[in-house]
């Protein structure tokens, strides 16, 4: 085999596999994802910036890459690890094999890896830094490189993946009785979120992460959505300031994932890093109000510590697997957020009702204003 590739972790483990994406060397924090479908959405989810994703489902690429399932302009993750990459995909929507897609975007991929063994290691030790290389087979050197990588904590990755300038989103727009204008602050927003808003009849304006409140108010939004995004929320300080202003004006706010964490901080709370995070599309979450369970799509390494929040913020959703908080709402302000992904992509559509909830908040606010 001359297409060999290597994977080395900071704890000294080295696996040998085969290249299945671009040639080169890459590094990042290794996380696993347990979704059995939706690799394209994962590949193009900006929240994975700086991370190497290990897919626990062994056969990846079976239905190729489609035109309608990208979650951003291009893949942002650092590397991709699979057991077996399919070279001959089959699906009526497929336009190219995943390997070609990775090569085109310069993403290093490795296959023939015992992804279960790797996953168990990440479960035991927590997310680890590591290197994937198609160039260097020297194990010692690779491990040293892995150790030298910066940690995820403290990095403002949203700054890296956010859009350069404002734009409006129209894909998937379906006219509704009442048109609402939503400003989405892009920390690495998934297109799935934008599609959900458009499908609800919203006019959507996406703004860069650093946009200040003044600019946002100028856009006269009916509501603001704080998007998902990669990494640690704490260094994203300018956005936290913006959110505080929005809250002060009673702007309806919906936070998702990183947006949820930022809202939490803006409301006075703290965040912490989970051992290996939640990455998958089968996490049961309970809506404490209706007692109903949703099967949710998740992708986060940090979490809001509810104990640190003022009593005006109440927990609305919890994760049934580990009891962590998954959602909160302010009892006086029109602001709520969830840690998981109601837009799903990839994952079940059980939580899409949250967009309707957001819509209701915006309508109520509009009516209150016109009164």
């Amino acid at each position, binding site marked *: 085999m001359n297409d060999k590739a290597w994977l080395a972790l900071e704890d000294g483990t080295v696996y040998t596999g085969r290249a299945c994406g671009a040639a080169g060397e890459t590094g990042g924090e290794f996380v696993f994802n347990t979704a059995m479908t939706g690799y394209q959405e994962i590949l193009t989810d900006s929240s994975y910036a700086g991370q190497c994703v290990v897919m*626990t489902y062994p056969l990846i690429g079976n239905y190729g890459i489609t035109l309608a399932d990208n979650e951003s302009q291009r893949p942002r993750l650092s590397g991709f690890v699979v057991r077996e990459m399919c070279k001959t995909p089959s699906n009526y929507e497929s336009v190219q094999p995943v390997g070609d897609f990775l090569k085109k975007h310069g993403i290093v991929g490795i296959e023939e890896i015992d992804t279960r063994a790797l996953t168990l290691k990440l479960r035991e030790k927590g997310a680890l830094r590591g290197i994937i290389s198609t160039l260097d087979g020297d194990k010692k050197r690779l491990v040293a490189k892995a150790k030298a990588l910066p940690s995820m904590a403290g990095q403002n990755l949203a700054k890296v993946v956010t859009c350069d300038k404002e734009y409006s989103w129209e894909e998937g727009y379906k006219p509704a009785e009442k048109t609402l204008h939503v400003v989405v602050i892009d920390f690495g927003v998934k297109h799935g979120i934008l599609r959900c808003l458009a499908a609800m009849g919203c006019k959507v304006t996406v703004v860069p992460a650093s946009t200040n409140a003044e600019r946002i108010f100028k856009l006269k939004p009916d509501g603001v959505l704080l998007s998902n995004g990669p990494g640690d929320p704490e260094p994203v300080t300018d956005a936290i300031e913006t959110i505080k202003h929005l809250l002060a004006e009673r702007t309806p706010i919906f936070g998702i994932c990183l947006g949820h964490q930022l809202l939490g901080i803006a409301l006075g709370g703290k965040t912490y890093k989970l051992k290996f995070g939640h990455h998958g599309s089968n996490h049961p979450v309970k809506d404490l109000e209706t007692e109903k369970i949703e099967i949710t799509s998740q992708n986060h390494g940090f979490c809001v510590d509810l104990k640190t929040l003022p009593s005006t913020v109440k927990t609305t959703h919890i994760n049934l697997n580990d009891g962590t908080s998954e959602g909160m709402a302010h009892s006086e302000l029109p602001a709520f957020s969830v840690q998981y992904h109601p837009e799903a992509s990839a994952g079940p559509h059980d939580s899409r009702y949250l967009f309707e909830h957001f819509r209701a908040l915006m309508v109520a606010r509009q009516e209150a204003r016109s009164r």
Partner: protein
Amino acid sequence: MPKRSDLKKILVVGSGSIVIGQGCEFDYSGTQGIKALREEGYEVCLINSNPATIMTDPELADRTYIEPLTPEYLEKVIAIERPQAILPTLGGQTALNLTVSAAEKGILKKYNVEIIGARLETIRKAEDRQIFKQCMQKIGIDLPRSIVVTDESDLKSVSRELGFPIIVRASFTLGGTGGGIAYHYDELRTRVHAAFEMSPVKKVLLEESVLGWKEYELEVMRDCKDNFVVVCTIENLDPMGVHTGDSITVAPAQTLSDRQYQEMREDAKRIISEVGVETGGCNIQFAVHPQTGRRIVVEINPRVSRSSALASKATGFPIARLAAKLAVGYSLDEMTNDITKATLACFEPAIDYVVVKAPRFATEKFGEFTLDTAMKSVGEAMAIGRTFKEALQKSLRGLESGKKGLSGAEPMDPETRLQKVATPTSSRLYHVKSALDEGLTVERIHEVSKIDPWFLNQLKDISDFEKSLAAMPLDAENLFAAKRMGFSDAQIALAKGVKEEKIRAKRWALKVRPSYKLVDTCAGEFPSTTPYFYSTYEETGDLIPSKAGKKVVILGSGPNRIGQGIEFDYCCVQASKALRAHGWQSVMVNCNPETVSTDYDSSDRLYFEPLTLEDTLEIIAVEKPMGVIVQFGGQTPLNLAVQLENAGVPILGTLPAAIDMAEDRRLFGAALKKLKILSPESGIAASADQALKIARRIGYPVMVRPSYVLGGRMMEVVYDDPSLVDYVGRALKAATHPSLLIDRFLADATEVDVDAICDGKDVWVAGIMEHIEEAGIHSGDSACTLPPHSLSPSVLLTIRENTRKLALHLKVRGLMNVQYAVKDGAVYILEANPRASRTVPFVSKATGLPIARIATWVMMGKPLKKLLAPAVLRGEVEPPYTATKEAVMPFIKFPGVDPKLGPEMKSTGEVMGLDSDFPRSFAKSQEAAGMLLPTSGSVFVSVRDEDKAQIVPMARSLRQLGFTLVATRSTADFLTRHGLDTTRVAKVGEGKPDVVDLMKQRTLSLVINTPSGKRSRADGYAIRRTALELNIPCITNLHSAGAAVHAISVLQGASMGVKSLQAHYETLPYKVDLGAKG
């Protein structure tokens, strides 16, 4: 919501006999369900006619009724037990139908019994295709267009509307009879005509064909709080048009993008809430157009199913157990995930492996059929691997159909090959492999077969690798690569032209060994402590270490097949129970997803693996057990015994040499001579000349068979020289060993089955069963009764004595089954098998004694004297009631096959009738088997000349019982001459109306037709086949006819009662409670 406290007692309905389409998956689900309900403190009673099930073991339910699954019997059970609720969703279509008809008859209302698990309304919505269609249209779900026709006149316009091909479904026929696919107008007319003749309600559904579309199944659960989860998605390799039960299926779905899948999931959610499934599991089938993605729903089953058993085994998510808990009011978030113990049951399993299920067909019995919309396979093997290629090859070798993995079919010209690839049959996959080997492109194969290119490319990878294997050096890297594609040592050996052992030795030397990984429901996200493993070739495994103490490996019986079914799984589960009762650890190995044995609950450690030498040796190498039990899993583990022993594996119980002695004709013959045990005269021939010589010496008729065959394959009774020469020609062509066994055929003899246990000192004859059908009809297809009803004390004594001598001589440790034939007071031995037999569960249920458990303890070194009371050991006591077993046949599924019995076994399952005496228990067994003996009407009699004299008294009895007699010329004349009024009817082809017409008009209520021994007559076939298709009871041998006449007289008298097993056992003259430890 907490469990319901208004319910105290719940009646669970089983699924009855194993038939095609309803296998042992319902024993698995029923067993889980009953355990779950009792765990919650409910009193549980059970009705199920099938004694070969774990669920009917007396300790499982509080009260167990082995009674026919008819509304009448159900009502009797309800009247005694007065349960508050009935749970029908664990017993397949049978339980659902029975419960619906009990509801319609007002029985449930009368006794105030609530249906739990699914509401009546829900069952109707799901089962009635027309109502279902309306529901789906209401919520905007697409389904195939369809039209119901009630007469044959407007077929032209209907066919214009639907377009050919058209799927024909007859309403309310048995097992989809009368249904099928019509490709053009003439075929449509014929099929609809046939369907009308078969359908009692004269209603036929014509449906738009979606042949060639992709087929998917979703296994879902929903609770009373509207929580909904998809447990598993399944994709069929064979596209629409091949029944899912006959398809190779894969979990999870492979070729749907997340968006496409989530849309399907949303549909499923809407369908299930519209139909109203709110307390249990449900199976939804979809078809997806491969080019446009149009998605339609095919059907839904509001109950657990074969696929849900598969899904449970594939994911570790116990659907039936949870379904039972949902039925009593729990919601999904109130229950924990049994496997992780840390997370909740309300989640969707994530798996990090691929699961493949392959169907097992009865080709050796019924030939090869084109597969269509009616299921034909009799069993299945499932395999788990880290790639599709690995899982597929493992599943194929798990089938035990002679293939060592994905191998090719026989050579043929390209045109025929293409034909074989285009037509779905049980061997199509092998032809596809050959076609790939021969260079046919994936595109071309897809074009003709409609199999998705994804699968074909996977098969091509295997084909390509195999081709390059021949030239590859066998170093560690290449062996590892081969193993990761699922190649068995045997396959590699074949490609390399060397012996399998050599490959294995090399592989072991190079340390290329499997690793074992866990089935943990969560793809490794959470720790799991449930030792449920599969093998794969990877960097590392995650084997959970075993506890200290003695450990025993039990080898299971693999996929169900005719001759080796649920009975053996029953024995394996019992063995595991017996070991665990003593704190010994049981390690189960099996690959049949339907079974109780592959429930992670049934053993201490479970390996879901094929039962080949290679796979078992690897498990034994990591488990290092004190011994291996091979006697419970039927022929499968027995075939491995010698090789395992040679590899140094300790075999528990009877040693392989003894097994060999019983199977080798010459050795066995010598032993019989020494022990002075009588056997039919016999000889061994290698040519027609030799055969003729032997036949003349012992006299016709003779029983002939190739040596080294199983399940009575190719066994025939031959009556004269020309037939013998003809047989020898055919047999020598088919056989691998050029030798034939020729025995004197004991005509008109009574066959007897004996199950015994020997500990080396004592022999316990656990059960003596007298067959109803005469010898010559395979023991597996015969009805039999315990205790025997007509054998003399001296015959019984000889049987006991011979069994004892033989068991001691063969040095049996554990079980032995012996078959005898009694003719004119002489007892001949037919064969002996030193292993668990098909009848072990029946004898256990009939006597109340857990035979398989006792045998396990004996194998572990406990003496019989310690385990049994002296009177029981000496065989001095027997039940004061009678148990009759009846076999259930699959003929209806195989168009054109003659439904007659012979020395080759053809049944798929069995039922038991339990009552005070033989005629009653026989009558019950017939009802349980679906043979609805009439109490009035006309009986058609047509018997061969040899039987004429004996039929007279039976015919006379029937006249006295008020029946009218109908017969064709010669039988009619004969009966009339003996003073019996008989109506003459034309033979088939002799004029109208003939006997078949009478059947179609339903003027005949019983048929007695004994096939002519020498030549099978065409009209005999037409009579038997028509009776079968119209469900008119048809008896094909005199002994059964006699028993039936008896039974009819009983049925005419007072109505039959019901009694639980537990109540029956109270009347036994011995104690059945052996305690947990024996």
